């Protein structure tokens, strides 16, 4: 993050402004990625008029960075109408997330003309037999890479997103090399998110500990391996006053149905823009304010963990395990693999006899969380979302 953006983020935090929002325009998709956490049916997407109204409200609320994602955004027939409205009329900084298989020269030129900041495209492998086996769409790698070239030729900033799974783990160096050859950025993400209905079976697709250890010790990815894998020193009191992440503080997520959540990976219902103004949900939702109240010192278990200040703990994943103030086992595992030191959560489970050797344990997941329809009245407590 640039220094100025950090400064503006601090200012937004102080003024309680949602600086950044991800808006999923649809959950429909033309790929069927094996690890995807979404159900791809349309359960009543917002109309064009509803989305424009929401965009107006978000601009009024001070939203600056608008990430349009899905599902596949180009499946919305009104996509360019919405994009033009967001850019030309409301002047959002717009980022797109797409599989890009519907982007040809004409679409790339239009995206460039509308001044989109960046386009993130999922590429799972440089090999069609691997990529297409993940998307379940034959020919999808070729189409996505063609799109990368069309967008790049327009001078657009393109980011290749490489989600790591058992199926494609060995291919990430070649994907990075391909991105470099195409002149685009590349990000790696080893996180597999549970399905939105709470089903955790997709987590089995995630890379194993040995593979993740290899990633964490790849100097071309992490820089100084020794420093990256070091155990953090004991945090002081000031560090424990820090926020767990930006979710609900300067950013949030809106689903195609108008539901507002702290983050795309944090499915705690806080309100619906069809029933309540966006800014009122942001400022006054009990659930959003509950999320906002949490500091590192408030985390059960994690506060006493040696990884507390360096862990990538995701409050959304913790929420999906049943307690947004609790640990996220996936991140515990990452911290352990990175440093070799078991997390406080892993040790507690071991003591309780719930786990095995922390180095080999498959971490238990006590309860599942379902996304439920919002109750008629605005504002939902955290407990209300737990099935």
């Amino acid at each position: 993050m640039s220094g100025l953006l950090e400064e503006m983020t601090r200012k937004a935090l102080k003024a309680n402004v949602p600086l950044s929002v991800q808006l999923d325009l649809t959950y429909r998709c033309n790929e069927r990625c094996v690890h995807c956490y979404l159900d791809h049916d349309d359960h009543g997407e917002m109309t064009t008029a509803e989305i424009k109204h929401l965009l107006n409200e978000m601009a009024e609320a001070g939203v600056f960075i608008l990430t349009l994602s899905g599902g596949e955004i180009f499946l919305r027939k009104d996509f360019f109408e919405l994009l033009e409205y967001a850019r030309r009329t409301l002047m959002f900084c717009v980022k797109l997330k797409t599989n890009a298989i519907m982007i040809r020269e004409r679409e790339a030129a239009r995206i460039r003309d509308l001044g989109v900041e960046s386009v993130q495209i999922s590429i799972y492998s440089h090999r069609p037999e691997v990529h297409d086996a993940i998307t379940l769409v034959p020919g999808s790698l070729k189409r996505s890479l063609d799109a990368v070239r069309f967008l790049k030729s327009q001078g657009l900033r393109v980011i290749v997103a490489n989600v790591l799974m058992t199926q494609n783990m060995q291919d990430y160096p070649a994907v990075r090399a391909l991105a470099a050859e195409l002149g685009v950025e590349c990000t790696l993400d080893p996180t597999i998110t549970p399905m939105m209905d709470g089903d955790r079976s997709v987590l089995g697709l995630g890379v194993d500990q040995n593979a993740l250890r290899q990633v964490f010790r790849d100097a071309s990815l992490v820089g100084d391996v020794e420093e990256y894998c070091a155990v953090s020193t004991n945090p002081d009191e000031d560090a424990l006053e820090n926020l767990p992440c930006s979710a609900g503080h300067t950013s949030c997520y809106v689903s195609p149905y108008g539901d507002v959540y702290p983050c795309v990976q944090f499915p705690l219902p806080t309100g619906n823009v069809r029933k309540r103004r966006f800014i009122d949900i942001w400022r006054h939702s009990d659930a959003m304010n509950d999320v906002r109240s949490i500091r590192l010192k408030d985390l059960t278990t994690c506060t006493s963990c040696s990884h507390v200040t360096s862990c990538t703990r995701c409050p959304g994943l913790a929420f999906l395990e049943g307690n947004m103030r609790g640990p996220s086992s996936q991140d515990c595992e990452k911290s352990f693999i990175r440093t070799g030191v078991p997390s406080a959560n892993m040790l507690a489970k071991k003591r309780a006899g719930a786990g095995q050797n922390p180095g080999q344990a498959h971490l238990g997941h006590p309860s599942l969380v379902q996304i439920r329809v919002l109750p008629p009245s605005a504002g939902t407590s955290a407990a209300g979302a737990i099935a």
Partner: protein
Amino acid sequence: MSRLYVARNPRVAARSLDGEMMIMSGRDSTLFTLNKTATILWQSADGTTPLDEIVEHRICQEFEVEPAEALHDAETLARELASHDIIQISEEPIPQRNPAAGEAR
């Protein structure tokens, strides 16, 4: 003396945060923040109002400053903003597809 016209570049992103205008360049995603004078200039840059009128009606109303000095400073500022592709400047009016964009927020 020819008049100068200024127009917001439609390729930038812009938002007012707590009274301060954030602008992201459409050229290289560089982030800028505008001071109060530059914010007034940005908000007034509709492509059809000459810079001297913006200075007279907006900037001199806001600040206690001599019009000639204010115009000189505003021209310098406008050229600097144009060098970052934040606004466009011309000695002719600049047609805008959506002149109200970015004005209010």
